[in-house]
């Protein structure tokens, strides 16, 4: 095999492909992440509809595929073949590429998200700064889309959502800074902005930053968790898209593929900010209690989790097969769900085999592969919790009014995050 492929795999130290200088593997990682995020967004579409439906005593999509599993694909096909309407009075060029700005910003962020100590495209020195900066570029797409539509509701929606995103970015940034401060509580006294460095700092200090200096980390995390909902324009801060007031906000005039790009960007941004939260406060890729339960046996037990999760999913799908009415109308659906269950079961088996094979935890390929799966699994699991929260919020809460939203952003969140930052600095100096 060519050297540029193997050299990265054979290297003894765990580096991201970017840091290791392997452009080939960086490209592969970019493609994997691009595909993975796209699939995740499509899956999120189904999960959100399903979950919301179950929150609201409905069934949700049930017709396209077993339990509506193929619904997102049907939706995607529908959106793709729909006419791409550009209003006559709109600014054609800007209208055309406005969705791309948001999408580009949302996806670029993923280059520095560490799914594992070496499972990232690149380990930037300014990782978190880069993430915040690039994700704030998403506002541009929204503002420009609302402006280019040349219509009232989109313009008001765009102004609202960008005002909202800009003001919540402040509190968000300050909360992030207080987490970064915590990374500097080591012997050398220097912190890091690198995403991987932040997780490693948590590893070294033996505590997730959410529990560091007990209420402080939690408060900063809470501020970030609220601000990120506002930042992504989700309920209860979805004023820009409040259908009872502004029909659909900045993307009122969009249709078809271009509209779906906005959706893609929104969900990608949701996953991205959740990833920041996970990285900064919830220990990133680390499994629970890596410092308490550090025996190799525990490593092995925890490495079984991915396989077991898929096994559980397969079991749920099988239960679904069993519960389907025994009517010929459901035959194809039953077969489809059974195949899906088998697929999940196969993945589960594969993961379990890898877990067993990579048990030795040396630097063999299987071992590294196993570690990688472990890291990605725990990271994705934590992100999934946030995704669930996003949906839960949406099902539970009414919507804020715009002045209340701004009041909370500037008069509540900002002072609290400033206070937390100051107190964290003081406590950090005293206790280090």
């Amino acid at each position, binding site marked *: 095999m060519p050297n540029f492929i193997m050299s990265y795999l054979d290297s003894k130290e765990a580096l991201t492909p970017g840091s290791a200088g392997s452009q080939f593997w960086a490209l592969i990682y970019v493609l994997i992440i691009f595909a993975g995020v796209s699939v995740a967004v499509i899956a999120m579409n189904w999960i959100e509809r399903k979950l*919301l439906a179950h*929150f*609201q*005593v*409905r069934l949700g999509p049930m017709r396209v595929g077993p339990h509506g599993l193929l619904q997102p694909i049907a939706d995607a096909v529908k959106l793709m073949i729909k006419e791409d309407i550009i209003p006559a009075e709109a600014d054609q060029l800007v209208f055309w590429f406005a969705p791309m700005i948001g999408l580009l910003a949302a996806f670029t962020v993923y280059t520095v998200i560490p799914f594992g100590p070496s499972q990232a495209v690149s380990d930037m020195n300014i990782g978190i700064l880069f993430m915040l900066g690039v994700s704030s570029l998403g506002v541009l797409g929204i503002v420009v889309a609302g402006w280019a539509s040349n219509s009232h509701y989109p313009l008001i929606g765009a*102004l609202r959502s960008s005002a909202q995103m800009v003001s919540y970015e402040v509190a968000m940034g300050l909360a992030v800074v207080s987490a970064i401060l915590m990374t500097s509580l080591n012997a050398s006294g220097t912190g890091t902005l690198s995403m991987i460095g932040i997780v490693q700092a948590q590893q070294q200090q033996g505590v997730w930053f959410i529990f560091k200096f007990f209420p402080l980390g939690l408060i900063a995390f809470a501020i970030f968790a609220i601000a990120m909902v506002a930042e992504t324009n989700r*309920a*209860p801060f*979805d*004023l820009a898209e*409040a*259908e*009872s*007031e502004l*029909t659909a906000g900045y993307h009122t005039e969009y249709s078809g593929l271009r509209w779906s790009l906005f959706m893609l960007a929104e969900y990608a941004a949701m996953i991205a900010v959740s990833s920041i939260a996970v990285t900064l406060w919830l220990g990133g890729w680390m499994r629970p209690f890596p410092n308490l339960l550090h025996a190799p046996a525990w490593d092995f037990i925890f490495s079984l989790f991915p396989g077991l999760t898929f096994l559980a999913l397969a079991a749920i799908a099988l239960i679904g097969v069993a519960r389907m009415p025994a009517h010929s109308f459901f035959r194809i659906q039953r077969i489809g769900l059974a195949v899906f269950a088998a697929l999940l079961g196969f993945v589960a088996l594969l993961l379990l085999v890898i877990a067993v094979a990579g048990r030795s935890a040396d630097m063999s390929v299987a071992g590294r592969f196993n570690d990688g799966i472990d890291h990605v699994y725990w990271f994705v699991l934590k992100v999934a919790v946030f995704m669930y929260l996003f949906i839960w919020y*949406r*099902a*539970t*809460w*009414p*919507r*804020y*009014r*715009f*002045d*209340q939203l701004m009041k909370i952003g500037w008069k509540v969140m900002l002072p609290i995050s400033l206070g937390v930052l100051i107190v964290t600095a003081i406590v950090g100096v005293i206790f280090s």
Partner: protein
Amino acid sequence: MSAYKNDQTNDASNRALSSLDRSNLDLKTPDKTYLDSNELIINMGPQHPATHGVLRVILKLDGEKVLGTECVIGYLHRGVEKIAENRTYTMFAPYVDRMDYCAAVSNGLGYCEAVEKLMNVEAPPRAQYIRVILTELQRIASHQLWLGTHALDIGAMTPLFYTFRDREEILKIFEKYCGARLTTHAFRIGGCQYETYAGFEKDVKNFLTFFAPKIDEYEALLTTNRIWLERTKNVGVISGADCIALGVTGPVLRASGVKWDLRKAQPYAAYSKFDFEIPTGENGDTYDRYLVRMQEMRQSMRIVEQAVDAIPEGPIMGKVPKVIKPPVGEIYHSIEAPKGELGYFIVSDGSTQPYRLRVRPPSFVNLQALDLMVRGLLVADVIAVIGTIDIVLGEVDR
């Protein structure tokens, strides 16, 4: 300050105009923009997701602050009162169901009782009990529908589905009783057309036991929800005196602290026989109206419970002739519909058709208070207030 500002602005725009002339442009008036517009006229509706039908509200805004409103109604006008003059009393009964289609049973009760009063007959006790049961169930259903849509306007999606799920149980009872779910036409002049079906009492009791925890469920979602409180507290405040002056009745009036309910004040049907309370609010804001309606559902359940337990045996139709020909005269009869005082003013000329039938619609009169309630609030509050008045455009426009 503002006058000074306007002068300045005019002066400035004049200057801007003259300078424009210098540069040979054919722009005569300076365009208005968001920032500079001291007053902005925005048209909300008639096609707007949050105006509960075809209500059109013209808003005069300063930024997002509402300076004044004007309601434009009549998009759903069907001329119910004119139709009444050309139908016999019996034929017209189904039409009243179409006014407040969310509370058809209440409309029918008011109409039948008005005609009965005009003819000086009375429905037998069993019929009256059935009427009370169905009307109170209808009140619950109407309030459920209100709660769901109101919460949806404010952004809470889930209560809508909960309330519709539970409203379904009431509609099932209606369907079993008279075959229709929405526009029931359950009552006839002189009593009820249908005897209760076998198991009616059981169904109603089952519903009561089913529904009691559901109200708690709604309240768990909303009553102490911080965002709900922020969106509804001190929003759309109206005092009791203003309510009376504007003729506002129903839960809106009671939420402003006036303990007045036609079921107690001037009991009709069998209401004097039941023990229930009139919930009132204190501040007259959207939140109090929400609380009052929630309490009313509970009180309605109490009434239904007592009525089902005490329902007497006997005939269900009073002694009314086949052809209904009330004597010459006129009558005003009103009942406490879910939305307020629903009155029928009927003038009879002794023929089989009403000479003049006037409906006093609660939604129509209550909607007048919108302007007073939303002044100085924000656009988003207008939506909340429209929801809290609980209008049905079928009744507003008739």
